[in-house]
């Protein structure tokens, strides 16, 4: 353990020389608690061709979903009529956005506020760098030289199926890479829902104040102003997200028990995390 800091300071040859000396002196003292004979994420492993200790999942592996996104499990429950908590591998609608080779016309999940909020959060993390906050295709990267993506607010895209957006995220499009590895399918569906909301919001005719939309808009504006005022008054502008976790956690925990048992091997890593959460 004493040798550890040295190990991290000194260049390899010096270390080797020191190690030999230390070996002679102490007949070897392995810092074997610091570096244990096992592979941690992102460690090197000479055994494999690409030298990564981490392996890709076997082709066709189905991701295990956990209960941390309540809207997902609620939705799954609704869809499957209760019981099932994660779609089967054969559920192509969920994983590809296509059913019988046809793009899904609507979202895989019933649209809810939770779904939209999740979609917004994920959109703002993942999509805004290029597509911008409103989906105009004016993200910051565009200013850095990335070719401008198409805006969402054209008729072709307004009329496109939900499954189409899902497919683009999953498989990439043009210069856009696939996000399948970075965004989980249910998150992709949430983003789809949010994109739909964006399209709506940017394409509303407010010229006639008597329309329902215009009234809603005014009401929303007033609400936002009030909320801003309240936020200014108190620092606690906590939004529903955190509470939702805590509040729904208990019930979903039990519901997900079955699926954990089913996919134990895949679940092992996440199960620890899962346990932490509750």
């Amino acid at each position, binding site marked *: *353990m*004493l040798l550890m800091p040295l190990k991290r300071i000194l260049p390899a040859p010096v270390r080797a020389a020191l190690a030999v000396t230390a070996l002679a002196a*102490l007949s*070897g003292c392995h810092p074997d608690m610091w570096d244990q004979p096992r592979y941690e994420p992102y460690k090197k492993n000479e055994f494999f061709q690409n030298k990564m200790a981490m392996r890709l999942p076997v082709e066709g592996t189905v991701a295990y979903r956990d209960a941390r996104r309540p809207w997902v499990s609620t939705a799954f429950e609704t869809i499957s009529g209760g019981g099932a908590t994660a779609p089967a591998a054969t559920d192509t609608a969920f994983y590809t956005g296509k059913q019988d080779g046809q793009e899904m016309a609507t979202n895989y999940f019933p649209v809810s506020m939770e779904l939209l909020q999740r979609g917004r959060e994920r959109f703002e993390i993942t999509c805004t760098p290029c597509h911008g906050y409103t989906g105009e295709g004016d993200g910051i990267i565009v200013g850095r030289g990335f070719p401008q993506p198409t805006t969402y607010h054209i008729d072709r895209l307004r009329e496109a199926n939900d499954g189409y957006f899902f497919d683009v995220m999953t498989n990439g499009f043009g210069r856009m890479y696939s996000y399948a590895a970075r965004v989980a399918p249910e998150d992709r569906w949430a983003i789809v829902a949010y994109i739909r909301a964006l399209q709506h919001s940017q394409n509303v005719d407010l010229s006639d104040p008597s329309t329902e939309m215009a009234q809603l808009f005014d009401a929303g504006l007033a609400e936002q102003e009030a909320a801003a005022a309240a936020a200014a008054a108190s620092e606690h502008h906590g939004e529903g997200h955190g509470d939702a976790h805590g509040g729904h956690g208990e019930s979903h925990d039990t519901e997900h028990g079955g699926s954990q048992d089913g996919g134990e091997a895949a679940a092992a890593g996440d199960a620890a995390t899962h346990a932490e959460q509750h």
Partner: protein
Amino acid sequence: MASTTTPIPRALETVAPLMAPGHTFESISRDITDVVLERPMPRAWFACLGIGVTLLGMLGASTAYLFWEGLGLWGINNPVGWGFAIVNLVWWIGIGHAGTLISAILLLFNQDWRTAINRSAEAMTLFAVMCAGIFPLLHVGRPWAIFFILPYPNTMALWPQFRSPLLWDVFAISTYFTVSLLFWFTGLVPDLATLRDRSKGISRYFYGIFALGWRGSAKHWFRYEAAYLLLGGMSAPLVVSVHTIVSFDFAVSVIPGWHTTIFPPYFVAGAIYSGFAMVLTILIPVRVLFNMEDFITKRHLDNMAKVMLATGLVVFYGYMTELFYAWYSGNDYERFMMANRIGGPYAWAYWCLLFCNALSPQFLWIKWVRTNTIPLFILTIIVNIGMWLERYVIVVTSLTRDFLPSSWGTYAGTIFDWMAYVGSMGLFITMMCLFIRFLPMITIFEVRIQQDQLNRNEIR
């Protein structure tokens, strides 16, 4: 100053004298310092040193391999996590106790016969504690991180577990070693001055530096005696506390056979017992080899044998109380533990230890045995073996079979256990040989006091 000579009562004329007659202050200095300064070492010394260094080499080799390969080399397993390491630790620490006991407790009790043997016994203490220290050091598995057991403000914001008897051990044994060293060195200073004044050439400087410029001033002696008595006064409870704490290692647990309130005094008595046995094992040959029979007389052997007998009886008492109260407890586990000792897989060790520690010392009731070197020497060896077996029985029988039969196991030391154990004896023998070669093995100035008292007829 009373100077009348009292006639020796007739009943006491048979008591062997404390030292041979006819000595002067000068002859005392000469006889003792000549071993270091003048006389060539006898062949037996070279033989001992050779054996010691060989065994020490074996210790080094087995330790090096242990560092390389890890503790798996030893026989320790689940459920016997302690094994030889603790057995040897307790054995060596116990042996060490005789030195302090002779120096400190006999000093406090005004026992004159301590004089001739305390120096070598104290040296033995130091070397035995060194040998003892090896085992926990190796047993932790990562000796280079051993400083973790000390309380120092560290980057972990963490303290050692002060409520663990193992940590008490750390404090007890390190304090014991330090205080023994101070006590020993304090005793050496006036003798180093003698060596300084009698040696020639380069060794004058060596002894001169360590004598610290001692000049025998009356004021110095005054403070010296005060300090020496204080050190003795502190060492006496210290030595008791050390083996008490060693016994706590076992006794604060709830393991049947370990959790016994008699352990503290019984361990202390056992320590003194084995310590005196070891002192005799060393002194019996040494006094002959280096012609020290004038100073280490039959009376010394007799007295030490008596102490062995007394402590042996206390140890016997310990065995008997363990036996009786295991039954009296009414507790199934306690009763099984005893039955297991008597008739379980390690019964051989139990019966051997009873033979070595309880039966064989009964011969010490006989004066002929106490004053004849050969039977006494054989007995001390038997007791040394017996005391090792005692710790072996305590550690192994209790750990191999405690509460749950499903967790029972067996234990045996491997060749590396034996190499470390026998090797530690090599360290002990080597250090002892070097000590005899370079330092006066008898406290010269105290023998002078004794001579002075003899001159005045104050003692016999």
